[in-house]
């Protein structure tokens, strides 16, 4: 019976739609576009002037601070702060930056159910999470790198040792940029999963900043209780910004008295790597669960 041909009841009329025959740009292109768009929007580029005020303002303040440092460094026989030192010192401003920018990148998409629109394109959930994470890390890196480049320009022009002095500064700059990569990766890996917990920017910002603000005095107090003992050396691990200062101290020999790692430098480095990996895994896991 089923072999009998069904009577034709309907027909699709050819009303002249053309097939798309151009190149199909695929998953990588979509993920790259999302990344570029996210980096731009984290500085408010392509948005209203009000969206630019805070991120650009923070970047501007960091740049001015670095200009002042150039002036001080050139006047004194020994520079007060080198490139890796900038990474350690500006981490505080960078925590404000990620607390403002991370909710901007992910919370609005969650609240307005925009994720399903993204996923109707050839990107996957993991691509979305990684693109956002990479965008936040890049934006944070820029916040560190611009003041360093300004400092490099200032110091290179005012060096007394000719071309050797310039290369000296260039070496310092490379170390500083390396530190900036570590700082940006850790801050982004902590902030992004936290921001993706809430579709409300109010609460997302609140959670992120609570983590950074609350751990700082706890860590400082624990260090004060047990100064110059193993527990005191390890107290800096609790606070992300002092953890990063500890890594700078261990890898690059920055000593700003922000933290005293004692003989535990490797522990600071290890915990940083663990946190970056865990943060990335949390972001991926979180976006596997988000409904779309």
């Amino acid at each position, binding site marked *: 019976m089923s072999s009998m041909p069904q009577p034709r009841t309907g027909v699709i009329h050819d009303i002249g739609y053309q097939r798309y025959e151009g190149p199909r740009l695929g998953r990588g292109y979509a993920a790259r576009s999302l990344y570029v768009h996210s980096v731009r929007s984290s500085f408010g580029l392509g948005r209203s002037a009000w969206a630019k005020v805070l991120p650009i303002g923070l970047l501007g303040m960091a740049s001015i601070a670095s200009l002042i440092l150039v002036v001080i460094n050139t006047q004194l026989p020994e520079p007060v702060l080198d490139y890796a030192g900038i990474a350690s010192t500006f981490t505080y401003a960078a925590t404000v930056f990620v607390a403002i920018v991370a909710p901007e990148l992910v919370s609005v998409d969650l609240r307005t159910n925009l994720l399903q629109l993204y996923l109707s394109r050839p990107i996957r959930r993991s691509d979305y999470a990684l693109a956002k994470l990479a965008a936040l890390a890049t934006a944070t890196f820029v916040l560190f790198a611009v003041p360093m480049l300004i400092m490099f320009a200032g110091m290179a022009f005012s060096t007394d040792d000719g071309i050797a002095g310039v290369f000296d500064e260039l070496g310092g700059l490379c170390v500083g940029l390396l530190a900036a990569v570590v700082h940006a990766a850790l801050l982004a890996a902590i902030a992004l999963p936290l921001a993706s917990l809430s579709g409300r920017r109010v*609460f997302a910002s609140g959670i992120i900043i609570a983590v950074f603000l*609350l751990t700082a005095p706890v860590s400082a107090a624990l260090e004060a209780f047990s100064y110059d003992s193993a527990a005191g050396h390890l107290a800096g691990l609790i606070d992300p910004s002092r953890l990063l200062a500890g890594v700078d101290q261990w890898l690059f020999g920055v000593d700003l008295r922000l933290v005293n790692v004692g003989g535990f430098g490797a522990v600071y480095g290890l915990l940083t790597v663990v946190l970056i990996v865990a943060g990335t895994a949390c972001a991926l896991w979180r976006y596997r669960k988000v409904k779309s």
Partner: protein
Amino acid sequence: MNPTIMRLTARALLGRRRVLLLLPMPLLLIGMTVIGVTSGASDDEWGPPVLGNLGLSVILPLTALVVASSVLGLEIDDGTITHLLTKPLPRREIILSKLAVAWAVTSAATAVPLALAALIAGSGALAVGMVVGATFASLAYCSLFLALSLLTKRPVAVGLVYIMLWENLLVGFVAGARVFSVRQHATAIADGIGGTPLLSASVSVATALIVSAVFVVVGVVGATRRLGSFALTGEAS
């Protein structure tokens, strides 16, 4: 004051599990105080880092920021503010009701654990000082952040910049900035009443009272005027 607005605001703020979000910070403060008391460090060693740097300068402003910018900010985000604005109520009444709820919640969530911490530290006078200081500073913070939630679309971001860059960073470099830092007012009032080495204040109590009162008036008047000419825009929140 309008009891209906207050009831609805309190329910939106504390309903379901949201009230649980306020719990971790007080618990952390009590825990750190217990560690401080039992660590054997002297009062002026552990007191300022825990009660001052953790309690009065992080937990108090952070609670006030989240609470005060959400009492009105969430309604603006959701668009339910239109229901409120179309009722025949003076705008002043809306602001005062919202502020009262924010103040009550912030004070309860900060003054009680701070007083408990002071009691654990063994100073009843400081406990009274903490209650008065935290309650007073809550009012100043709440009026400021409530006004911010009307003046800008990103109240938390601007509030964070005030707390972290002004109160925590700039005050360290420019001593004069202390006069305009609510956190210093809270410390001054609490220390003025308590008079223990557990806190160290750097502005006078009179300055603290006057400047905080100015903050409250500016915040309430600014918020009321702003809400009086409030324009709903369709821009993405």
